[in-house]
């Protein structure tokens, strides 16, 4: 393969850090959730890259499981966001201070 493993890892690192920046800077809980998905995608990319360059498929099986867990996570997470919205009429995380009292 013409493109080496470091190129994929660097790309995944950049995407992961963009995701971290999104989680840290945004206030809209949906955007935060999307940033988490972005981070997960970056990690998937490292899994597939390593698996491909190590010539073993185990890493790709893990990506398959991550896909399943991500789907479950999105379903439950969006249901929680919807429940919070119905309760508080907001998606702004600064307004979600129920635990603080």
């Amino acid at each position, binding site marked *: 393969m013409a493109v080496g493993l470091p190129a994929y*890892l660097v790309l995944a690192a950049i995407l992961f850090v963009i995701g971290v920046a999104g989680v840290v800077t945004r206030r*809209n809980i949906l955007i935060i959730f*999307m940033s988490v998905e972005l981070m997960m995608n970056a990690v998937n*990319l490292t899994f597939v890259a390593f698996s491909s*360059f190590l*010539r073993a498929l185990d890493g790709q099986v893990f990506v398959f499981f991550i896909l399943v867990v991500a789907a479950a996570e999105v379903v439950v997470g969006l249901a929680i966001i919807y429940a919070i919205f119905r309760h508080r009429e907001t998606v702004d995380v600064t307004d979600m201070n129920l635990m603080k009292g």
Partner: protein
Amino acid sequence: MSGAASLMEVALFAVLALVAIVAALVVITHRHPVYSALCLVITMLSIAFLFLLLRSEFLWVMQITVYAGAVMVLFLFVIMLLDLRREERPWRFPENRLQVGVGTLLALALVAELIVMAVAVRLPGGAGGGISPEVVAAQGHTQLLGRLLYTEYVFPFEVTSVILLVAIVGAMVLAKKRVE
């Protein structure tokens, strides 16, 4: 691999990587959640085609159907259900210079660390796991992955079905209207 084919691969990687990074930046900076979601779809599609570049066709299809398809439809559905046009406190660039400086510095430090790690990584030589691109091309990626999934990883595979069941039940309980 011939010179033209490898040049093509490098060019494809460069374009896909650029598209993925730009779309990811739009995801975290755009004010409107719908545009963020659509740009996230673009990032996921780029990553899907990078999977194809890494010779894993099955995950390419899975990435498109599950992530770019199902997950993002769910996101858009919830965004439109909640009707988020009226954003009370729109996001804007923070005015505190110190916060921006320290934040940017930390982000760059993190990415630099990861890049140093990525460049320093050394793979063991030899045939590795023995699944070379030629073997994948001869036997089919889906078949190889399916064999591994139903033999060595059959227990985790069964556990995922329980996870999905819990997710379905949990979502229904959370989204249900409480009847007093």
